[in-house]
């Protein structure tokens, strides 16, 4: 992931023939292409191997002793005699303080996910279903903000945090992640809510429902898939972010998240490859669980601009 901030994707609608997009589909009912030849299978398998082996190497090295991983390549561990150890994990979690950093990462990511999603939901509903002057012009500003580099904001925001005495605190990172995550959140939710059936809101209005009721009882429950995608995305951005923590938490060691701790370990050469690999895997555990558990939502979040109900 790119540190913090949205990838700035604007995907044109790719639904044609009424097929839902954003799903990893397999086994098409009708042949889309001729039966694959052996060559194609070999090319695909080779690519899968290239994509998997770096991570496999990391995982294997993280269970090897310091002596082994500095002497021979990780692939030699695949042959007997097998000598694996959990010592590296014990070392990084305790001595290197990664257990604390793991908690810090959770402390940062969970509020930094919830706040922008909630803030964006109201505004997205207003953009989708209310009329007001300059509505489109304002939304064009949001589209523009999707792509601005965070670097453009660092110095003034850091000064602001210093003025209020919250530089280095979790609060600073929560607020910053909220601001940075909002353009994408607004874009995704506004597109999704705008695609909900018009009749639902019209009949609710005729029945005397206030906009607040329509929002809480209709728009919000109907937008759960988009909100889920957005929340997963925002969680992974904030969990994987380095830049925002580096700038706004910086040297406040107590509050450093995993990414910052591991980056410091790498830069200080603090510990051999056996420790770095274990440390890197600790940062990956949660994203991998989220990825495998919620892949469908994750993919839908990526094709987000195209999600239309």
């Amino acid at each position, binding site marked *: 992931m790119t540190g913090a901030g949205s*990838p700035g994707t604007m995907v*044109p609608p790719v639904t044609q023939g009424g097929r839902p997009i954003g799903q990893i589909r397999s086994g098409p009912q009708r042949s889309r292409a001729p039966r694959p030849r052996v060559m194609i299978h070999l090319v695909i398998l080779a690519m899968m191997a290239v994509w998997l082996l770096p991570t496999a190497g990391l995982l294997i090295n993280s269970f090897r002793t310091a002596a082994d991983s500095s002497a*021979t390549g990780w692939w030699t561990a695949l042959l007997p005699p097998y000598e694996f150890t959990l010592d590296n994990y014990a070392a990084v979690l305790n001595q290197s303080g990664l257990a604390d950093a793991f908690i810090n990462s959770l402390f940062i990511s969970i509020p930094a996910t919830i706040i922008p999603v909630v803030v964006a939901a109201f505004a997205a509903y207003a953009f989708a279903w209310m*009329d007001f002057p300059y509505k489109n012009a304002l939304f064009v500003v949001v589209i*523009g903000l999707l*792509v601005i580099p965070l670097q453009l904001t*660092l110095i003034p925001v850091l000064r602001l945090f210093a003025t209020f005495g919250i530089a280095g605190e979790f609060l600073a990172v929560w*607020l910053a992640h909220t601001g940075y995550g909002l353009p994408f959140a607004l874009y995704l939710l506004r597109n999704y809510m705008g695609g909900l059936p018009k009749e639902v809101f019209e009949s609710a209005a005729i029945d005397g429902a206030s906009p607040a009721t329509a929002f809480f009882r209709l728009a919000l429950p109907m937008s759960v898939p988009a909100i889920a995608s957005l929340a997963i995305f925002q969680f992974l951005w904030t969990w994987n972010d380095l830049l925002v923590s580096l700038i706004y938490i910086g040297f406040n060691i107590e509050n450093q998240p995993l990414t910052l701790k591991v980056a410091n370990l790498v*830069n200080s050469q603090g510990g051999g490859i056996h420790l770095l690999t274990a440390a890197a895997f600790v940062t990956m555990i949660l994203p991998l669980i989220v990825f495998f558990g919620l892949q469908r939502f994750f993919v839908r979040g990526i094709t987000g601009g195209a999600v239309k109900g």
Partner: protein
Amino acid sequence: MSDLVMAAAVVVGIPAALVGYILGVEFVLRIFPQQRRSKVRPWLWILPAGLFVFVFLIYPAIGTLIDSFKDRRSEDFVGLANYEYVFTNRDVIGAIGNNVLWLILFTALTVGFGLIIAILLDRVRYESAAKSVIFLPMAISFVAAGVIWSVVYAYDPPGSSQTGPLNAIVTGLGGNPVSWLRNGSTGTYALIIIGVWMWTGFCMVILSAGLKGISVELLEAARVDGANEWHVFRHIILPLLMPTIAVVSTTMIIIALKAFDIVYVTTNGNFGTDVLANRMYNELFNFSQFGRAAAIAIVLMLAIAPILVANVRRFREQEAIR
């Protein structure tokens, strides 16, 4: 412990406060006559988001623009001196050159591989498993990816056993081990490959969704008429996918221009691998040159500006169809 209380207060309190805010708005609006209500309401609904966007994006962007014309402490105006520095300093020019390399190679490789993989996987039964494998690196951080690839690129002196698979292959073929990352001629390429490994899955997923949108009948009709697979790709799939390819490419260009984490973690810009975003960080925190750092940020923004314009134009077109 106090942090835990605060986090709990934030997680529960902020959503509750916002719900309370909306209900409060509705309550206050009852004072107004019916017509005025629907005029005032939208502004109050977008106010919280608007405040965040203003404080964390718009206000600081303007501040940075002003800082870029001021000295290192942001006190006195120095005209265009910071921009002169950006475009004349050899190290910064080197970083700009690397950004250009990122922009071309990273974009071409991620979109190219993404397209090839999407098309190949469309033909096999294990499509979703294979997609998960290619897509997986998207979920992890650049920091973790940096460590993963430092194992791949590991270098041991000639003669000793190589712990990195890449150099093991090179020496196995009779060559000398290469210090991939700490070497001016390969460093940036090695970093770009890490980026490609992470982002190809993203391109693949979007291009694949676009591919599934092309009607099967169209492809079958072409094949029945005797078109071979290359013709089907060149004259049907490629033109129909072009809008999707354009969008994915612009996203990759933005990522290439903003590249930071991967450089910071692996080489910190040494060995001729620096990029603008990392240079900006160093100007800011290591050299305390606020003016120069601001000027680099503005240059980055100007590089991204054409894409911003294209996005806005595309949004307008989509709205027109809506």
